[in-house]
């Protein structure tokens, strides 16, 4: 039964009822306003939570931390994870048709179900301001592979040089992609969604108007700093990087015109990073310009993309502590024990003072000149890397980076040669010399004129006869079936110098190589 609305008894009540009726739309409006306000506050709080978010996964396991733990580079230099995932879809030619980054030599592990993991080794992920960003950590340059033979299983070795990584190619691709119309929101967002992002409508708008423009702005900025330099470089090839020139352009914001052309051809091989603790106090880096492991590590992290503001010192120190006594896998090469023993005698006599030696169990870091700088006047190897590090640059490094913090650089020096390196894990460190200009140990014992002038690098099949990796000769400018054709005649790629042992008779060279193959 409908309830009749009772008429008000007094005039005051009549007027109050009228007032309420007149006020009702206003009240409804205010209620809506309040509701909208609350929703807005909710959104604002959610947005504030997202915009203040800065978190990355902490991996209890040091091995996973090394491969995927963040050192802070993702925050300062990273690209959105979903863009990372979408790029292979947008640029199939550059990725050889794969939906991953193997085309640039990135390494992937497979999970327990045999599925390839989402991110390659050396890539960390961080939720920064609500967007997952990915970029490099230490492992990107210090994890490589070997195969015992063609067709054998590929073995990933942490802390060996990243012999596959085509950093030059990858950086150039990223910088070019930044100005490619395929990264316009209209193309990128569908690709991101296809990659599995599942962005909400609101998130799509945020991506369209904030995330993507900011990312492209970053790309354009980096490109403006690096493009001319990279364009002037011959491709470095896999396993190599120019440590200091990008540093000058990006961190120091120096202009390319202000850098002497002599400094600009400095690409060198990634080093192995086993056994770091015994190296403390030695001249580190190829040119021996720093004797502090901590400073060397921090400097390398800057190269990976951290900034003094974003660097995660604890994460880096955790890696450093683990690397302190990390032993390389033993050499799998089978050698004639007698020959190796004869070679050992030769080595101890002629080489050990500079390089230390391989003991029965582990490498022995002893030698009068081990870890000291050998003037390049006597060494005679390519000076490109040495010349890229200048006194002027050093001054700015010491003055500007981490200034006013306990991490301020103090130990960098300008040297006149290259450091005498320990040769632990030598079997994983080919090609040889700082710039990787000599493919095998046998070639290194050949006079410079007889060393291969062009050879393939980037093939990870170990060479049990000559040391290093299988490195067939090639024609510069050609694209070999596997790997990259390295041309020693290009600036910075020279294969001269380090003529020690080149005059030994062939049998002694064989003995010496037999011994070196056990390193």
């Amino acid at each position, binding site marked *: 039964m409908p309830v009749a609305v009772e008429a008000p*008894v*007094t*005039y*005051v*009540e009549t*007027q*109050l009822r009228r*007032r309420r009726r007149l006020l009702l739309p206003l009240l409804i409006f205010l209620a809506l306003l309040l509701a909208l306000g609350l929703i807005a506050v909710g959104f604002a709080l959610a947005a504030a939570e997202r915009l203040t978010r800065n978190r990355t996964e902490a991996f209890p396991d040091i091995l996973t931390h090394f491969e995927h733990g963040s050192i802070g580079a993702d925050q300062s230099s990273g690209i959105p994870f979903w863009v990372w995932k979408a790029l292979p879809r947008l640029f199939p030619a550059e990725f050889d048709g794969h939906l991953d980054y193997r085309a640039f030599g990135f390494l992937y592990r497979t999970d327990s179900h045999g599925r390839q993991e989402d991110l390659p080794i050396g890539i960390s992920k961080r939720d920064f301001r609500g967007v997952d960003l990915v970029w490099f950590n230490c492992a990107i340059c210090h994890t490589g592979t070997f195969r015992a033979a063609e067709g054998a299983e590929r073995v990933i070795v942490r802390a060996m040089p990243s012999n596959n990584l085509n950093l030059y190619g990858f950086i150039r691709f990223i910088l070019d992609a930044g100005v490619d119309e395929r990264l316009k929101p209209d193309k990128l967002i569908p690709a991101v969604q296809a990659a599995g992002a599942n962005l909400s409508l609101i998130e799509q708008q945020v991506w369209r108007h904030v995330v993507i423009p900011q990312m492209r702005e970053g790309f354009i900025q980096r490109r403006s700093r690096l493009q001319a330099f990279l364009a002037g470089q011959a491709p470095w090839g896999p396993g190599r990087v120019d440590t200091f020139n990008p540093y000058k352009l990006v961190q120091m914001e120096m202009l390319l015109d202000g850098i002497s052309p002599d400094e600009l051809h400095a690409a060198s091989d990634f080093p192995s990073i086993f056994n770091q603790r015994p190296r403390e106090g030695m001249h580190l880096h190829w040119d021996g310009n720093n004797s502090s492991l901590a400073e060397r590590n921090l400097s390398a992290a800057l190269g990976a993309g951290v900034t003094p503001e974003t660097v995660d010192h604890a994460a880096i120190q955790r890696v450093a502590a683990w690397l302190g006594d990390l032993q390389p896998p033993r050499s799998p090469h089978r050698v004639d024990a007698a020959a190796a023993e004869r070679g050992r005698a030769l080595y101890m006599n002629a080489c050990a003072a500079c390089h230390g030696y391989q003991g029965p169990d582990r490498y022995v870091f002893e030698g009068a000149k081990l870890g000291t700088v050998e003037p390049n006047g006597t060494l005679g190897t390519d000076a490109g890397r040495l010349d890229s590090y200048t006194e002027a640059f050093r001054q700015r490094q010491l003055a500007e980076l981490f200034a006013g913090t306990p991490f301020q650089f103090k130990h960098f020096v300008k040297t006149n040669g290259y450091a005498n390196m320990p040769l632990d894990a030598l079997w994983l460190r080919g090609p040889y010399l700082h710039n990787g200009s000599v493919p095998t140990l046998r070639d290194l014992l050949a006079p410079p004129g007889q060393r291969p002038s062009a050879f393939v690098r980037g093939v990870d099949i170990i060479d049990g006869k000559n040391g290093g990796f299988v490195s067939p000769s090639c024609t510069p400018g050609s694209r070999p079936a596997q790997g990259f054709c390295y041309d020693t005649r290009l600036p910075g790629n020279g294969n001269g110098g380090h003529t020690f042992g080149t005059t030994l008779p062939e049998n002694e060279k064989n003995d010496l190589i037999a011994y070196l193959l056990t390193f």
Partner: protein
Amino acid sequence: MSEDVIFTPLKFRNLTVKNRIFRSNISGRFDNEDGSLTQTRVNWECKFAAGGVGAIISSYVPVLMEGRIIADYATIHRDDFIPLWERLGAAVHRFDCKYILQLSHSGRQMDFPGVHNSHRPALSSTSRKETLHGFLCRAASKAEIDHLVQAFAAGAWRAREAGLDGVELHAANGYLFTQFLSSGINDRTDEYGGPLQNRARFLIEVIRAIRARVGREFHLQVKLSAVDRNNVIPWEKKGNVLADTIEVAKWCESEGADAIHVSTGSLFPHPLNPPGDFSFETIATTYDAMIASGVDAFRNFLLFRYRMLRPIFRWVWFRMKKGLPVEGVSMDEARAIKANVTVPVLNTGGYQTASFIRNGINSGAFDGVAIARSLVANNDLVQQWGMGRDLPERPCTYCNKCLLNAAKNPVGCYELARFPSRDAMIEELMTIYATRPTLNLPPVVSAKAA
């Protein structure tokens, strides 16, 4: 020993009062809903007459049922009430006390509309609601104003017919006359609005109509608010100033008023009328009776009821009192008016000290005073003065609890500190019911006769 001026007669043109003390208008809710007065009113008025006052100004007496402030106050809107008022007058006269009937109309200031009025807006000069409680109203038409004028004249005639000693037009404190007079309230654009002369037109017309109806020989006085101070609600206009009221007083005199009674404030109660304290604890328990009376009353109830809100009203109410005394709060204004008229001037506002009143009369501030609260506290105040006291033994504290209780409880003094016990206070409150009316039996009407 020279004669005490308080006890010298005050001679008006048509009336002589034995002393200078008038019981100001105050009443309780003790009359009948139809407007007929009761034995309790007779008892109430006689308390003061017996106490020695020279004259009693009745409580507010509406000339029409639609002009009641409070539903169960006696009215003078019917001829058949004349004998009742006559009886009351006779009762008071036994004490050599005069009785002046205050003719009134609430206009929009209608605290308890009652069954007669709750269904309609009150008549006023304006259609804008009253600002403190949100009482509703509508502007009277010319025909309605004429009707009101005649109602006042009829009221005066009934008072004269009842043998009462005079009438007072309640043209102060926010009631209908004030609503016309005040520049802060009157927003009319016809001949009753705008300049002061227009705003005073209704009052002047009433005086003329009364004089036309009762002649020149019947005492007629006018109670005026000297200054409106209409901005109790801070954003309201201030209303009339003293100079306006002086003009109005002069016009009243020239139209035949025999005295001017000076009060203050354009609403009642007003921070300065009655002056004194404001008991939140009291009003928090009584104001609920008024919630249905105005559209803003519930807001006020909340302001009174909740301690955390009280500072708001406290600021509103007490800001006007700063620097002003309680006793003689409008004495200077009375003095200014007296200086401009030739008829006697009465003043109200917290009077209780004999020497203070004496000084006021001797210095020409006024000719007599009208007192309510101090007489409620001490019905025999005048006698105490006569015995030489300057202040009574247990003086009125100006707590205003008598006023704030009026909405719900019997009229009287609620200042517990003045009594030896709560029982004594209640006993005193109940004295107005002491003389009981003779109960008459209603006639039996047979079914056949009906």
